[in-house]
């Protein structure tokens, strides 16, 4: 999911860079103020952990394996702002030192994995946990959703830039990641279970949310996200099995450059239609995200 330089149009990466830069600036201020700033080394070493965790491979069946994203994992432990900083740090290092993800695409990658993956994932976790009171369910759903959403948004960005039409890339990306997401969810649950067994104070901010009494927006958010990103594309024109999609577009998963068939052999739909669909998709996700952000702000004010 690390988008390199050269494939995104400026219309896509420029605004996303602005969004990500502001988010980082805000999170930096927030973290410097709230967390003990003298504990920067601790944050740094844990960011190195995030880097290592993203290299963790797990089997997803059919002889293939997925990579952990770790967004929800780290956000539930360290909080969404610290998590955003950690993931951004990791992405910067990956771009600078490992040629994994581009410089102009850095804003987009931070947006996909840090803001959407960790931030939105964290909101989902917090919401579902307060609604259902079922920690594992909340963790699992949030992890799954964060992976699928991040993949979906990456697909949308690529399709707006004309690389792959959304009608192809969205089902492919979300399809593969719907499976990877199950692994992500299961692993996140197990990891958090072990960590919380040792130290008590793991779930950042869960206590405050538990008393929260307005569950409906969260359910709506979760359901609409799942429908928008997962079910809808499948209901459309490509009922191919997930296996097939995973195979044909496997190259979108980093670390698996051995794929043989780069393109599916079906007709590629007209460009204009593709762009309008993908535009709609991205706008939808952005609006949802904005909504979620406002909601969490409101909640926060109530609990101060």
């Amino acid at each position: 999911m690390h988008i390199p330089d050269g494939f995104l149009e400026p219309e896509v990466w420029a605004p996303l860079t602005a969004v990500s830069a502001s988010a980082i600036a805000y999170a930096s201020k927030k973290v410097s103020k709230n967390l003990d700033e003298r504990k920067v080394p601790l944050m740094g070493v844990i960011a190195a952990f995030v880097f290592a965790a993203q290299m963790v491979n797990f089997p997803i069946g059919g002889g293939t394996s997925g990579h952990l994203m770790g967004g929800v994992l780290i956000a539930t432990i360290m909080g969404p702002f610290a998590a955003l900083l950690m993931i951004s740090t990791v992405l910067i290092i990956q771009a600078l030192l490992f040629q994994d993800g581009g410089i102009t695409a850095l804003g987009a990658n931070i947006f996909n994995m840090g803001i959407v993956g960790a931030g939105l994932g964290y909101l989902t976790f917090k919401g579902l946990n307060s609604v259902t009171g079922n920690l594992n369910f909340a963790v699992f759903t949030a992890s799954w959703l964060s992976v699928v959403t991040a993949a979906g948004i990456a697909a949308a960005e690529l399709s707006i830039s004309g690389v792959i039409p959304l009608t192809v890339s969205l089902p492919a990306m979300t399809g593969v990641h719907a499976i990877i997401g199950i692994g992500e969810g299961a692993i996140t649950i197990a990891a958090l279970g072990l960590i919380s067994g040792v130290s008590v104070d793991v779930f950042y901010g869960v206590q405050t949310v538990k008393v929260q009494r307005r569950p409906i927006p969260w359910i709506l958010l979760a359901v609409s996200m799942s429908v928008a990103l997962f079910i809808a594309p499948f209901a459309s024109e490509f009922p191919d099995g997930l296996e097939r999609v995973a195979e044909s577009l496997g190259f979108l998963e980093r670390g698996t450059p051995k794929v043989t068939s780069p393109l599916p052999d079906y007709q590629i739909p007209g460009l204009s239609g593709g762009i309008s669909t993908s535009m709609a998709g991205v706008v939808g996700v952005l609006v949802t995200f904005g909504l979620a952000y406002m909601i969490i702000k409101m909640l926060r004010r109530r609990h101060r």
Partner: protein
Amino acid sequence: MFDPTYIDSYSNIDAPYQRLDARGKIIVTLAFVVIMAVSVNDRPLRVIPFSLHVIFLAAISRLSPKVLLRRMLPALPFFLFASLALGFSKGSHAAVAAFLKAFFSVLSVIILVSTTRFSNLLKGLEGLNLPTILVSMIFFVYRYLFIIADEYGHIKIARESRNFSGSKRWQWKAIGHSVGTLFLHSYERGDRVYSAMVARGYEGNIRTLGIQAITRADIIFVAISVIYLLSAGLISWKLL
């Protein structure tokens, strides 16, 4: 991928480019990547003046093409496939242009990090107003990356040694437990590193030994590069 030596291995070559200030190099690299990204569009020919700039930098940093290519190798397959996909939707020109853009952007970043000591690079980023906390975190990730990745390697070996297999569910659970363990180790390590730093007079921000001075050479380099890149963008926009 996990050989830490390669990161700083070419920063000690005594060549003109290595002697320049990190901030100037970062600005020029950013200008290069951004201006190229904005001006090339779907025209492969427009990449030519930009490629000349990168080749010039490679020359004044005395990096051998072999070294550069080897470092780029892991990224290439993705570029190929993505441009192929682009080729189907937007045509071969767009595909070639995208590939070249990706190629030269990566090349410029590789030249930047190969010719700048990582600590100077960080000082440069800080000098360019990246939030201090982020710069410090990059510093620690860089320092602990290999150590923590190695640690996961050890856990993995211990797992394999005991015949790790079984159902997917069981494997996911065991992997999750390994990740949790790795987190606890990292946390404890972070705690102790903090103690070690405090013990040597650390009081909240990393101090460095005098930032590199910006000389006239730096200013000339940045000015000429930016002017060249801008005009390359504009002229190729008109002509190619």
